[in-house]
């Protein structure tokens, strides 16, 4: 798998030729733009997603509140956009952090070989065998103050967000590590690596300048697919009350609140669920499209 010199261009062309992947990419960009523009939108329209107005709760859609209001009288549209920002951020940051760990461990394992490789692969196998969801629940339930983290961090609004990203990265790196290792094992025997070594390049330079670019394409595919799964996982944990904590909105914890109001206000459950579904679907189609664009020979994934 050698990425041509103009890798970005060829990927873009491959994705464009794949209609569903192109649509998926457009949807994701549109969602991201809308979500990250949430503060701007709320400023322009003069509505604040955090303002609680109990007199105006569960209102039907109106000009003032295009999607109505939630159980605390907050504007649903702004809440959805802010929740989307958290969900998308978790997906992107979680999968990238996992990919980062995976790349480092995989490339060291594959390039160094021998005992280092054997040890790192045993660790990888061990992590793969762990039951993910129950462990995530244990980790998410840990009381941060008992770990000895400073009080102002544990009580800060975004602490739960950082925690969930960290926890997901901690378990999500195995796919990328194995992909990178397999690629690095093949690439390190190639002439250009020998040439680089002969020219006096150190192992670090060889690993990241010569080996990494040649093994990166399956990593891009896996990271895209992982991003979708991370968003799903975040929503599950938040739904169980262990993920992103209110007042910070995420699509998962909005659903958790909506569950109790299913009968009186089903719309509250419809919107966030549909958005999660749409986003994860888009990530999966994009990943599939990238897979076909980057590696048309091997179609199987998941």
């Amino acid at each position, binding site marked *: 798998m050698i990425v041509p010199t103009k890798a970005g261009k060829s990927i873009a062309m491959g994705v464009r030729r794949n209609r569903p992947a192109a649509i998926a990419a457009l949807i994701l960009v549109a969602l991201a733009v809308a979500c990250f523009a949430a503060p701007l939108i709320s400023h322009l329209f003069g509505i604040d997603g955090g303002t609680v107005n109990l007199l105006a709760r569960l209102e039907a859609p109106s000009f003032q509140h295009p999607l109505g209001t939630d159980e605390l009288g907050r504007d649903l549209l702004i809440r959805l956009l802010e929740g989307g920002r958290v969900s998308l951020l978790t997906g992107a940051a979680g999968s990238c952090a996992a990919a980062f760990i995976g790349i480092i461990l995989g490339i060291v394992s594959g390039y160094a070989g021998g005992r280092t490789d054997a040890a790192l692969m045993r660790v990888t196998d061990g992590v793969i065998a*762990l*039951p*993910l969801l*129950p462990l995530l629940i244990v980790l998410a339930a840990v009381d941060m103050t008992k770990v000895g983290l400073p009080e102002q961090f544990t009580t800060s609004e975004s602490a739960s967000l950082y925690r969930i990203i960290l926890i997901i990265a901690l378990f999500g790196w195995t796919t990328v590590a194995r992909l990178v290792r*397999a690629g690095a094992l093949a690439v390190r025997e190639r002439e250009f690596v020998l040439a680089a070594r002969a020219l006096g390049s150190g192992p670090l330079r060889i690993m990241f300048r010569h080996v990494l670019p040649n093994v990166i394409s399956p990593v891009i595919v896996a990271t895209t697919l992982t991003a979708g*799964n*991370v968003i799903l996982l975040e929503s599950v944990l938040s739904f169980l009350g262990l993920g992103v904590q209110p007042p910070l909105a995420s699509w998962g914890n909005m659903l958790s609140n909506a569950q109790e109001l299913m009968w009186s206000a089903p719309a509250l*459950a419809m919107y966030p669920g549909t958005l999660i579904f749409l986003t994860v679907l888009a990530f999966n189609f994009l990943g599939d499209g990238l897979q076909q664009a980057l590696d048309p020979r091997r179609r*199987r994934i*998941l």
Partner: protein
Amino acid sequence: MIDVRVRLTQFDSPMARLILARLLQAVAVLLIMSFAVYGLIGLMPGDPIDLMISADPGLTPADAARLKALYGLDQPLFQRWLHWLLSVASGDLGYSRLYAKPVSEVLGPAFFNTLMLLGSSFLLSMFVALPLGIWAAMRPNSPRDYLINLTAFAGISIPPFWLALMLIAVFAVLLGWLPAGGVGIGSDNGLGAVRYFVLPVATLTFASLGAHTRFMRGAMLEVLGEDYIRTARAKGVGPFRVVVYHALRNAMIPVVTILALEFGTLFSGALVTETVFAWPGMGRLIFDSIMGNDFNLALVALMLATAMTLVGSLLADLIYTWLDPRIRYE
């Protein structure tokens, strides 16, 4: 099931892997994992001594200290863990605080409930997914392939708990056809119990349908690209016969391996669905015991879940070599 670890390299696992080494490794993973979880549980909100103090306001700090010593909570973490490990190894799983029963008595029924639920949804999913995947692979990039792919991706991408909520909203609340939750086993006659299965099984089936279909389609596509399939077609073998008699056996190899891997998720795979439907299975047991500070139960259940996954992956490797004699583990 939802997992951040996308399964990519299940089938090109390194060759050199003796069963013995794998078993040793499994034991190592279990030990490390049990120690880690033992330590983590101590870091969760709530403290057993605090619970006792809140239950009896008459307790003095001296009593609390004595209780701590009585339960060995004043000892270092490693010693406490070792003590727990030895008693578990000798068959004493401890007492469940939440259920007020010995842990061993709690696990049995929960395991049975989960097995029923996951077993039926798994069979149903296979029954639908395998033909769909094969049918899609027979004409790649056709409208029907796109449609099947879309359905499969939908199954992979839908949040299972949300699907469950929507199903409850429509079939239990709006139409009133089916119960919203609970388990009918034992309490009802045969047909009545089945009604409790419909919604959770539908949720789980749709959630696993996508991955199964994609898998079958991918495996079949790969086999249909082989030279011997072209030879068979050139001989004039019809499309149906090519698939059933020439391709299916080889295409089933990765699929069967997946079945073994899913066996490993038996304990925790239905956690979310069980929680939404109040289904008293292993997944909900694990969740409730973690949230309810029921340390004995949580530890044992988590260990079992891990052991299951380890056995599943070992089984997958063994089945794979058995079905495909070209693969040898040196």
